Protein backbone atom coordinates (compact mmCIF):
# COMPACT_ATOMS: atom_id res chain seq x y z
CA UNK A 1 0.00 0.00 0.00
CA UNK A 2 0.99 3.62 -0.38
CA UNK A 3 1.61 4.01 3.38
CA UNK A 4 4.51 1.58 3.12
CA UNK A 5 6.37 4.16 1.05
CA UNK A 6 8.01 7.33 2.33
CA UNK A 7 5.49 10.04 3.06
CA UNK A 8 4.97 12.39 0.18
CA UNK A 9 2.35 15.01 -0.38
CA UNK A 10 -0.18 14.69 -3.17
CA UNK A 11 1.33 16.04 -6.38
CA UNK A 12 0.09 19.24 -7.97
CA UNK A 13 -3.08 18.79 -10.00
CA UNK A 14 -2.72 19.09 -13.76
CA UNK A 15 -5.44 20.82 -15.79
CA UNK A 16 -6.58 18.72 -18.72
CA UNK A 17 -8.65 19.80 -21.69
CA UNK A 18 -9.62 17.15 -24.21
CA UNK A 19 -12.68 15.97 -26.08
CA UNK A 20 -14.71 12.92 -25.19
CA UNK A 21 -17.10 11.66 -27.86
CA UNK A 22 -16.93 15.06 -29.53
CA UNK A 23 -17.70 17.14 -26.45
CA UNK A 24 -15.09 19.21 -24.65
CA UNK A 25 -14.07 18.02 -21.19
CA UNK A 26 -12.06 19.94 -18.64
CA UNK A 27 -10.85 18.29 -15.51
CA UNK A 28 -8.02 18.78 -13.02
CA UNK A 29 -6.32 15.44 -12.44
CA UNK A 30 -3.75 13.96 -10.16
CA UNK A 31 -0.93 12.86 -12.51
CA UNK A 32 -1.29 9.35 -11.10
CA UNK A 33 -4.84 8.97 -12.44
CA UNK A 34 -5.41 6.71 -15.42
CA UNK A 35 -7.60 7.76 -18.33
CA UNK A 36 -9.83 4.83 -17.35
CA UNK A 37 -10.40 6.18 -13.86
CA UNK A 38 -11.00 9.71 -15.14
CA UNK A 39 -13.59 8.47 -17.63
CA UNK A 40 -15.40 6.31 -15.10
CA UNK A 41 -15.06 8.19 -11.84
CA UNK A 42 -14.84 11.82 -12.93
CA UNK A 43 -16.86 11.94 -16.15
CA UNK A 44 -19.40 9.21 -15.28
CA UNK A 45 -18.68 7.34 -18.49
CA UNK A 46 -18.94 3.87 -16.99
CA UNK A 47 -19.36 2.03 -20.28
CA UNK A 48 -15.58 1.57 -20.39
CA UNK A 49 -14.81 -1.33 -18.06
CA UNK A 50 -11.96 -2.02 -15.67
CA UNK A 51 -10.81 -5.61 -15.95
CA UNK A 52 -7.19 -6.32 -15.01
CA UNK A 53 -6.06 -2.65 -14.77
CA UNK A 54 -2.66 -3.78 -16.14
CA UNK A 55 -3.10 -3.78 -19.91
CA UNK A 56 -3.60 -7.50 -20.19
CA UNK A 57 -7.35 -7.92 -20.87
CA UNK A 58 -8.50 -5.11 -23.18
CA UNK A 59 -11.80 -4.42 -21.34
CA UNK A 60 -10.86 -0.74 -21.03
CA UNK A 61 -10.12 -0.20 -24.75
CA UNK A 62 -10.98 3.29 -26.06
CA UNK A 63 -9.79 5.33 -29.02
CA UNK A 64 -7.38 8.24 -28.65
CA UNK A 65 -7.11 10.34 -31.82
CA UNK A 66 -8.74 7.44 -33.65
CA UNK A 67 -6.35 4.74 -32.45
CA UNK A 68 -7.26 2.05 -29.97
CA UNK A 69 -5.39 2.04 -26.67
CA UNK A 70 -5.90 0.53 -23.25
CA UNK A 71 -7.12 3.36 -21.03
CA UNK A 72 -5.87 1.65 -17.86
CA UNK A 73 -2.23 2.13 -18.92
CA UNK A 74 -2.81 5.60 -20.36
CA UNK A 75 -1.95 8.26 -17.81
CA UNK A 76 -4.80 10.77 -18.08
CA UNK A 77 -2.29 13.62 -18.37
CA UNK A 78 -1.20 12.15 -21.70
CA UNK A 79 -4.54 12.84 -23.43
CA UNK A 80 -4.42 16.61 -22.93
CA UNK A 81 -5.55 18.16 -26.23
CA UNK A 82 -6.52 14.81 -27.72
CA UNK A 83 -9.82 13.31 -28.86
CA UNK A 84 -11.10 10.32 -26.89
CA UNK A 85 -13.90 8.06 -28.10
CA UNK A 86 -15.59 5.60 -25.75
CA UNK A 87 -18.36 3.05 -26.21
CA UNK A 88 -20.84 5.83 -25.34
CA UNK A 89 -19.75 7.62 -28.51
CA UNK A 90 -20.39 4.97 -31.15
CA UNK A 91 -24.20 5.01 -31.38
CA UNK A 92 -26.01 6.63 -34.30
CA UNK A 93 -27.60 10.10 -34.23
CA UNK A 94 -30.92 8.76 -32.95
CA UNK A 95 -29.36 6.46 -30.41
CA UNK A 96 -29.47 3.40 -32.63
CA UNK A 97 -26.82 0.74 -32.17
CA UNK A 98 -23.73 0.82 -34.32
CA UNK A 99 -23.88 -1.97 -36.93
CA UNK A 100 -21.04 -3.76 -35.12
CA UNK A 101 -23.00 -3.65 -31.85
CA UNK A 102 -26.05 -5.11 -33.64
CA UNK A 103 -23.83 -7.80 -35.15
CA UNK A 104 -22.60 -8.75 -31.65
CA UNK A 105 -26.23 -9.38 -30.70
CA UNK A 106 -26.99 -11.25 -33.93
CA UNK A 107 -23.97 -13.53 -33.54
CA UNK A 108 -24.24 -14.20 -29.80
CA UNK A 109 -20.87 -12.50 -29.39
CA UNK A 110 -21.30 -12.03 -25.65
CA UNK A 111 -22.55 -13.81 -22.60
CA UNK A 112 -21.90 -11.79 -19.43
CA UNK A 113 -21.10 -8.68 -21.48
CA UNK A 114 -18.35 -7.27 -19.29
CA UNK A 115 -15.67 -7.36 -21.98
CA UNK A 116 -18.07 -6.26 -24.72
CA UNK A 117 -17.47 -2.48 -24.70
CA UNK A 118 -13.75 -3.16 -25.09
CA UNK A 119 -14.39 -5.78 -27.76
CA UNK A 120 -16.55 -3.35 -29.75
CA UNK A 121 -14.04 -0.50 -29.50
CA UNK A 122 -11.25 -2.85 -30.51
CA UNK A 123 -13.35 -4.36 -33.31
CA UNK A 124 -14.13 -0.91 -34.74
CA UNK A 125 -10.42 -0.10 -34.79
CA UNK A 126 -9.60 -3.51 -36.27
CA UNK A 127 -11.93 -2.73 -39.19
CA UNK A 128 -10.60 0.82 -39.60
CA UNK A 129 -7.04 -0.51 -39.68
CA UNK A 130 -8.00 -3.01 -42.38
CA UNK A 131 -7.02 -6.02 -40.30
CA UNK A 132 -10.07 -8.05 -41.30
CA UNK A 133 -8.87 -9.86 -44.41
CA UNK A 134 -9.68 -13.28 -42.98
CA UNK A 135 -10.58 -14.91 -39.67
CA UNK A 136 -6.94 -15.55 -38.79
CA UNK A 137 -6.11 -11.88 -39.15
CA UNK A 138 -9.16 -10.85 -37.12
CA UNK A 139 -8.11 -13.23 -34.34
CA UNK A 140 -4.53 -11.95 -34.40
CA UNK A 141 -5.57 -8.32 -34.20
CA UNK A 142 -8.27 -8.95 -31.58
CA UNK A 143 -5.95 -10.97 -29.34
CA UNK A 144 -5.62 -8.09 -26.90
CA UNK A 145 -9.26 -8.49 -25.85
CA UNK A 146 -9.95 -11.44 -23.61
CA UNK A 147 -13.43 -12.93 -23.15
CA UNK A 148 -13.66 -15.27 -20.18
CA UNK A 149 -17.13 -16.45 -21.32
CA UNK A 150 -15.43 -17.71 -24.48
CA UNK A 151 -17.61 -15.93 -27.02
CA UNK A 152 -14.70 -15.66 -29.44
CA UNK A 153 -16.38 -17.49 -32.34
CA UNK A 154 -19.27 -15.01 -32.23
CA UNK A 155 -16.95 -12.03 -31.89
CA UNK A 156 -14.96 -13.04 -34.97
CA UNK A 157 -18.20 -13.64 -36.91
CA UNK A 158 -19.62 -10.25 -35.90
CA UNK A 159 -16.47 -8.40 -37.01
CA UNK A 160 -16.15 -10.42 -40.22
CA UNK A 161 -19.74 -9.72 -41.21
CA UNK A 162 -19.69 -6.04 -40.30
CA UNK A 163 -16.39 -5.49 -42.09
CA UNK A 164 -17.81 -7.08 -45.24
CA UNK A 165 -21.09 -5.14 -45.07
CA UNK A 166 -19.44 -1.80 -44.46
CA UNK A 167 -16.70 -2.23 -47.05
CA UNK A 168 -13.70 -2.63 -44.76
Amino acid at each position, binding site marked *: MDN*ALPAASAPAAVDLAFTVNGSPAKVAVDPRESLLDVLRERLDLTGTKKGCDHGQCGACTVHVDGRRVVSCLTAAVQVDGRAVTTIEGVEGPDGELHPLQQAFIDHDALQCGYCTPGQVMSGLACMAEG*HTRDDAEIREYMSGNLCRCGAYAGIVAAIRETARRTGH
Partner: protein
Amino acid sequence: MRPFAYTAARTLGQAVEALADGGPGTKVLAGGTTLYDLMKLRIENPPAVIDISRVSELTRIDTSGAELVIGAGARMADVAEHPVVRRDYPALSESLWRAASQQLRNMATVGGNLLQRTRCSYFRGGSAFPCNKREPGSGCSAIDGIDRHHALFGGSQSCIATYPGDWAVALLAFDAKLDVVGPKTRRTIALADLHVEPGSTPQREHTLAADEIIVRIRVPKTAAGRGSTYLKIRDRESYAFALTSAAVGLTIGRRGVIEQSRIALGGVATRPWRVPAAEQSLIGEQLTEATARRAGEVAFAGAKAGHHNGFRIELGIRTVTEALMIARTRATR
Protein backbone atom coordinates in the same frame (compact mmCIF):
# COMPACT_ATOMS: atom_id res chain seq x y z
CA MET B 1 1.13 4.60 -6.68
CA ARG B 2 3.63 6.95 -5.10
CA PRO B 3 3.03 10.62 -5.91
CA PHE B 4 5.37 12.06 -8.50
CA ALA B 5 6.10 15.44 -10.04
CA TYR B 6 4.92 15.52 -13.65
CA THR B 7 6.58 17.46 -16.45
CA ALA B 8 5.49 17.38 -20.09
CA ALA B 9 8.35 18.07 -22.50
CA ARG B 10 7.57 19.54 -25.91
CA THR B 11 11.05 19.29 -27.41
CA LEU B 12 13.97 16.92 -27.02
CA GLY B 13 16.00 19.77 -25.51
CA GLN B 14 13.33 20.34 -22.86
CA ALA B 15 13.21 16.63 -22.11
CA VAL B 16 16.98 16.35 -21.66
CA GLU B 17 17.05 19.44 -19.47
CA ALA B 18 14.12 18.31 -17.33
CA LEU B 19 15.65 14.86 -16.90
CA ALA B 20 18.98 16.36 -15.81
CA ASP B 21 17.21 18.68 -13.37
CA GLY B 22 14.82 16.06 -12.08
CA GLY B 23 17.06 14.56 -9.45
CA PRO B 24 17.82 10.91 -8.63
CA GLY B 25 15.26 8.38 -9.77
CA THR B 26 13.57 10.64 -12.32
CA LYS B 27 12.11 8.58 -15.15
CA VAL B 28 11.16 9.23 -18.75
CA LEU B 29 7.57 8.36 -19.70
CA ALA B 30 6.84 7.60 -23.36
CA GLY B 31 4.09 5.07 -24.12
CA GLY B 32 3.85 4.14 -20.47
CA THR B 33 3.04 0.49 -21.06
CA THR B 34 5.92 -0.70 -18.88
CA LEU B 35 6.67 2.22 -16.57
CA TYR B 36 3.10 3.19 -15.64
CA ASP B 37 2.21 -0.48 -15.15
CA LEU B 38 5.16 -1.00 -12.80
CA MET B 39 4.31 2.21 -10.96
CA LYS B 40 0.82 0.80 -10.33
CA LEU B 41 2.49 -2.32 -8.93
CA ARG B 42 4.80 -0.11 -6.84
CA ILE B 43 7.81 -1.78 -8.41
CA GLU B 44 8.85 1.54 -9.95
CA ASN B 45 8.49 4.55 -7.65
CA PRO B 46 9.98 7.55 -9.45
CA PRO B 47 9.69 10.86 -7.58
CA ALA B 48 9.48 12.71 -10.90
CA VAL B 49 8.40 11.77 -14.41
CA ILE B 50 9.27 13.52 -17.68
CA ASP B 51 6.63 12.87 -20.35
CA ILE B 52 8.20 12.73 -23.84
CA SER B 53 5.11 11.45 -25.66
CA ARG B 54 4.57 14.84 -27.35
CA VAL B 55 8.12 15.30 -28.60
CA SER B 56 7.37 15.06 -32.31
CA GLU B 57 11.01 15.15 -33.41
CA LEU B 58 11.41 11.70 -31.84
CA THR B 59 8.80 10.04 -34.04
CA ARG B 60 10.35 10.33 -37.50
CA ILE B 61 10.95 7.28 -39.65
CA ASP B 62 13.38 7.76 -42.57
CA THR B 63 14.00 4.86 -44.92
CA SER B 64 15.59 6.81 -47.78
CA GLY B 65 19.27 6.32 -46.99
CA ALA B 66 21.70 3.44 -46.53
CA GLU B 67 20.18 2.66 -43.17
CA LEU B 68 16.72 2.61 -41.67
CA VAL B 69 16.45 5.50 -39.24
CA ILE B 70 13.65 5.10 -36.75
CA GLY B 71 12.86 7.72 -34.12
CA ALA B 72 12.79 6.28 -30.63
CA GLY B 73 9.35 7.79 -30.09
CA ALA B 74 7.76 6.05 -33.09
CA ARG B 75 5.01 3.69 -32.02
CA MET B 76 5.48 -0.04 -32.40
CA ALA B 77 2.38 -0.36 -34.62
CA ASP B 78 3.60 2.33 -37.02
CA VAL B 79 7.03 0.75 -37.47
CA ALA B 80 5.56 -2.76 -37.78
CA GLU B 81 3.33 -1.63 -40.65
CA HIS B 82 5.78 0.67 -42.41
CA PRO B 83 5.92 -0.63 -46.00
CA VAL B 84 9.70 -0.36 -46.35
CA VAL B 85 10.32 -2.08 -43.02
CA ARG B 86 7.96 -4.89 -44.06
CA ARG B 87 9.64 -5.30 -47.43
CA ASP B 88 13.31 -4.90 -46.50
CA TYR B 89 13.21 -6.24 -42.94
CA PRO B 90 10.36 -8.68 -42.37
CA ALA B 91 12.10 -9.85 -39.17
CA LEU B 92 11.88 -6.35 -37.70
CA SER B 93 8.21 -5.96 -38.64
CA GLU B 94 7.33 -9.41 -37.32
CA SER B 95 9.19 -8.87 -34.06
CA LEU B 96 6.92 -5.88 -33.48
CA TRP B 97 3.52 -7.20 -34.59
CA ARG B 98 4.09 -10.50 -32.80
CA ALA B 99 4.59 -8.60 -29.56
CA ALA B 100 1.84 -7.36 -27.21
CA SER B 101 -1.59 -6.39 -28.58
CA GLN B 102 -2.54 -3.78 -31.15
CA GLN B 103 -3.70 -1.48 -28.33
CA LEU B 104 -0.30 -1.70 -26.63
CA ARG B 105 1.55 -1.40 -29.96
CA ASN B 106 -0.36 1.83 -30.62
CA MET B 107 0.95 3.18 -27.32
CA ALA B 108 4.41 1.74 -26.78
CA THR B 109 7.40 3.35 -28.48
CA VAL B 110 10.26 1.51 -30.14
CA GLY B 111 12.75 3.22 -27.83
CA GLY B 112 10.86 2.39 -24.66
CA ASN B 113 10.40 -1.15 -25.89
CA LEU B 114 14.16 -1.71 -25.75
CA LEU B 115 14.17 -0.85 -22.06
CA GLN B 116 11.12 -2.84 -20.98
CA ARG B 117 11.71 -4.71 -17.78
CA THR B 118 11.52 -8.42 -17.17
CA ARG B 119 8.22 -10.26 -16.74
CA CYS B 120 9.69 -12.49 -14.01
CA SER B 121 6.71 -13.13 -11.71
CA TYR B 122 8.86 -12.77 -8.62
CA PHE B 123 10.15 -9.40 -9.79
CA ARG B 124 6.62 -8.19 -10.55
CA GLY B 125 5.15 -9.90 -7.49
CA GLY B 126 6.49 -7.31 -5.08
CA SER B 127 7.83 -7.54 -1.57
CA ALA B 128 6.36 -10.98 -0.84
CA PHE B 129 9.21 -12.40 -2.94
CA PRO B 130 12.95 -11.82 -2.53
CA CYS B 131 14.34 -10.42 -5.78
CA ASN B 132 17.86 -9.11 -6.30
CA LYS B 133 16.78 -7.05 -9.29
CA ARG B 134 14.05 -5.26 -7.35
CA GLU B 135 15.78 -5.21 -3.99
CA PRO B 136 19.53 -5.88 -4.30
CA GLY B 137 20.82 -8.41 -1.79
CA SER B 138 17.40 -9.88 -0.95
CA GLY B 139 17.96 -13.10 -2.91
CA CYS B 140 16.44 -14.73 -6.00
CA SER B 141 13.11 -16.53 -5.70
CA ALA B 142 13.30 -17.95 -9.21
CA ILE B 143 16.48 -20.01 -8.97
CA ASP B 144 14.82 -22.64 -6.80
CA GLY B 145 11.28 -21.59 -7.71
CA ILE B 146 9.05 -21.79 -10.74
CA ASP B 147 11.62 -21.07 -13.43
CA ARG B 148 9.62 -22.24 -16.46
CA HIS B 149 10.04 -18.90 -18.24
CA HIS B 150 13.50 -18.10 -16.93
CA ALA B 151 16.76 -17.77 -18.77
CA LEU B 152 18.80 -20.60 -20.26
CA PHE B 153 21.66 -18.22 -21.10
CA GLY B 154 23.36 -15.39 -19.27
CA GLY B 155 22.03 -16.04 -15.79
CA SER B 156 24.01 -15.68 -12.59
CA GLN B 157 23.70 -16.76 -8.99
CA SER B 158 21.87 -13.47 -8.42
CA CYS B 159 19.31 -13.50 -11.21
CA ILE B 160 17.94 -15.62 -14.05
CA ALA B 161 15.21 -13.23 -15.21
CA THR B 162 14.55 -13.34 -18.94
CA TYR B 163 14.81 -10.25 -21.10
CA PRO B 164 11.25 -10.22 -22.45
CA GLY B 165 11.50 -8.15 -25.63
CA ASP B 166 11.35 -9.20 -29.27
CA TRP B 167 12.30 -6.02 -31.12
CA ALA B 168 15.76 -5.80 -29.53
CA VAL B 169 16.44 -9.41 -30.53
CA ALA B 170 15.67 -8.66 -34.17
CA LEU B 171 17.70 -5.43 -34.05
CA LEU B 172 20.65 -7.30 -32.54
CA ALA B 173 20.71 -9.72 -35.45
CA PHE B 174 21.04 -6.79 -37.85
CA ASP B 175 23.75 -4.75 -36.10
CA ALA B 176 21.50 -1.86 -35.09
CA LYS B 177 22.94 1.25 -33.45
CA LEU B 178 21.37 3.75 -31.10
CA ASP B 179 21.86 7.51 -31.01
CA VAL B 180 21.70 8.66 -27.42
CA VAL B 181 21.68 12.14 -25.95
CA GLY B 182 22.32 13.52 -22.47
CA PRO B 183 22.96 17.00 -21.07
CA LYS B 184 26.67 16.77 -21.95
CA THR B 185 26.80 13.73 -24.18
CA ARG B 186 25.79 12.85 -27.69
CA ARG B 187 26.93 9.39 -28.61
CA THR B 188 26.19 6.34 -30.69
CA ILE B 189 26.28 2.86 -29.21
CA ALA B 190 25.79 -0.54 -30.75
CA LEU B 191 22.56 -2.17 -29.66
CA ALA B 192 24.78 -5.10 -28.71
CA ASP B 193 26.28 -2.86 -26.02
CA LEU B 194 22.96 -1.66 -24.58
CA HIS B 195 21.84 -4.62 -22.46
CA VAL B 196 24.02 -6.30 -19.83
CA GLU B 197 23.93 -9.67 -18.12
CA PRO B 198 22.89 -9.57 -14.46
CA GLY B 199 26.15 -10.76 -12.89
CA SER B 200 26.16 -9.64 -9.26
CA THR B 201 24.22 -6.42 -10.05
CA PRO B 202 20.94 -7.50 -11.66
CA GLN B 203 19.38 -4.12 -10.85
CA ARG B 204 21.61 -2.74 -13.63
CA GLU B 205 20.07 -3.79 -16.93
CA HIS B 206 21.60 -1.46 -19.49
CA THR B 207 24.50 0.89 -20.11
CA LEU B 208 22.65 4.18 -20.52
CA ALA B 209 23.39 6.87 -17.97
CA ALA B 210 20.45 8.00 -15.83
CA ASP B 211 20.30 11.32 -17.71
CA GLU B 212 20.45 9.91 -21.24
CA ILE B 213 17.57 9.45 -23.69
CA ILE B 214 17.49 7.20 -26.76
CA VAL B 215 16.87 9.46 -29.76
CA ARG B 216 16.85 7.09 -32.71
CA ILE B 217 17.59 3.57 -33.84
CA ARG B 218 19.65 3.02 -36.99
CA VAL B 219 19.77 -0.26 -38.90
CA PRO B 220 22.22 -0.72 -41.78
CA LYS B 221 20.47 -2.02 -44.90
CA THR B 222 21.59 -5.50 -45.91
CA ALA B 223 20.33 -8.19 -48.27
CA ALA B 224 20.01 -10.49 -45.27
CA GLY B 225 17.21 -8.20 -44.12
CA ARG B 226 14.96 -9.31 -46.96
CA GLY B 227 15.77 -12.94 -46.30
CA SER B 228 14.71 -12.70 -42.70
CA THR B 229 12.05 -13.69 -40.21
CA TYR B 230 11.24 -13.43 -36.53
CA LEU B 231 9.66 -16.65 -35.33
CA LYS B 232 8.11 -16.58 -31.87
CA ILE B 233 6.76 -19.59 -30.00
CA ARG B 234 4.32 -18.88 -27.19
CA ASP B 235 2.01 -20.66 -24.75
CA ARG B 236 -0.89 -19.27 -26.79
CA GLU B 237 -0.87 -18.32 -30.43
CA SER B 238 -0.93 -14.57 -29.94
CA TYR B 239 -0.43 -11.92 -27.27
CA ALA B 240 2.09 -13.66 -25.03
CA PHE B 241 5.77 -13.38 -24.26
CA ALA B 242 8.12 -15.78 -26.03
CA LEU B 243 8.93 -19.23 -24.69
CA THR B 244 11.53 -19.21 -27.43
CA SER B 245 12.09 -17.01 -30.44
CA ALA B 246 14.63 -16.55 -33.18
CA ALA B 247 15.50 -13.64 -35.43
CA VAL B 248 17.31 -14.94 -38.48
CA GLY B 249 18.51 -13.50 -41.77
CA LEU B 250 20.19 -15.17 -44.73
CA THR B 251 21.75 -14.33 -48.02
CA ILE B 252 22.09 -17.24 -50.39
CA GLY B 253 24.27 -17.19 -53.51
CA ARG B 254 23.59 -18.56 -56.97
CA ARG B 255 24.40 -22.18 -56.26
CA GLY B 256 22.42 -22.23 -53.06
CA VAL B 257 25.42 -21.49 -50.88
CA ILE B 258 24.80 -19.46 -47.73
CA GLU B 259 26.91 -16.31 -47.89
CA GLN B 260 25.65 -14.49 -44.84
CA SER B 261 23.72 -15.61 -41.82
CA ARG B 262 22.45 -13.88 -38.73
CA ILE B 263 20.81 -15.56 -35.75
CA ALA B 264 19.70 -14.06 -32.45
CA LEU B 265 17.62 -15.72 -29.75
CA GLY B 266 14.79 -14.23 -27.71
CA GLY B 267 12.89 -15.33 -24.64
CA VAL B 268 15.73 -17.58 -23.49
CA ALA B 269 18.40 -15.28 -22.11
CA THR B 270 18.95 -12.46 -19.64
CA ARG B 271 19.56 -10.14 -22.57
CA PRO B 272 19.08 -10.33 -26.36
CA TRP B 273 21.34 -13.21 -27.34
CA ARG B 274 23.24 -13.46 -30.60
CA VAL B 275 24.85 -16.77 -31.50
CA PRO B 276 27.87 -16.19 -33.80
CA ALA B 277 28.98 -19.85 -33.74
CA ALA B 278 25.58 -20.91 -35.07
CA GLU B 279 25.75 -18.23 -37.76
CA GLN B 280 29.25 -19.39 -38.74
CA SER B 281 28.16 -23.03 -38.95
CA LEU B 282 26.03 -22.17 -41.98
CA ILE B 283 28.51 -20.18 -44.05
CA GLY B 284 29.39 -22.01 -47.27
CA GLU B 285 26.72 -24.65 -46.69
CA GLN B 286 23.45 -25.35 -48.45
CA LEU B 287 20.46 -24.66 -46.24
CA THR B 288 18.69 -27.94 -45.58
CA GLU B 289 16.68 -29.26 -42.65
CA ALA B 290 19.90 -30.92 -41.47
CA THR B 291 22.14 -27.85 -41.62
CA ALA B 292 19.40 -25.70 -40.12
CA ARG B 293 18.92 -28.15 -37.27
CA ARG B 294 22.68 -28.25 -36.69
CA ALA B 295 22.76 -24.45 -36.45
CA GLY B 296 19.98 -24.68 -33.85
CA GLU B 297 21.97 -27.22 -31.87
CA VAL B 298 25.08 -25.06 -32.00
CA ALA B 299 22.98 -22.08 -30.87
CA PHE B 300 21.77 -23.92 -27.79
CA ALA B 301 25.02 -25.76 -27.00
CA GLY B 302 25.71 -23.59 -23.93
CA ALA B 303 22.15 -23.57 -22.58
CA LYS B 304 21.86 -24.12 -18.85
CA ALA B 305 18.50 -25.53 -17.73
CA GLY B 306 17.02 -25.05 -14.27
CA HIS B 307 14.19 -27.07 -12.77
CA HIS B 308 11.23 -26.46 -15.09
CA ASN B 309 12.63 -24.86 -18.23
CA GLY B 310 14.68 -27.63 -19.84
CA PHE B 311 11.98 -28.29 -22.43
CA ARG B 312 12.77 -24.92 -23.97
CA ILE B 313 16.18 -26.15 -25.19
CA GLU B 314 14.71 -28.58 -27.72
CA LEU B 315 11.90 -26.08 -28.43
CA GLY B 316 14.53 -23.43 -29.10
CA ILE B 317 16.53 -25.69 -31.42
CA ARG B 318 13.38 -26.36 -33.42
CA THR B 319 12.52 -22.65 -33.42
CA VAL B 320 15.88 -21.79 -34.99
CA THR B 321 15.49 -24.63 -37.49
CA GLU B 322 12.04 -23.52 -38.61
CA ALA B 323 13.02 -19.86 -38.72
CA LEU B 324 15.93 -20.69 -41.03
CA MET B 325 13.64 -22.67 -43.33
CA ILE B 326 11.26 -19.69 -43.53
CA ALA B 327 14.14 -17.28 -44.16
CA ARG B 328 15.42 -19.51 -46.97
CA THR B 329 12.19 -19.09 -48.94
CA ARG B 330 12.58 -15.33 -48.69
CA ALA B 331 16.31 -15.25 -49.34
CA THR B 332 16.04 -17.15 -52.61
CA ARG B 333 12.86 -15.56 -53.87
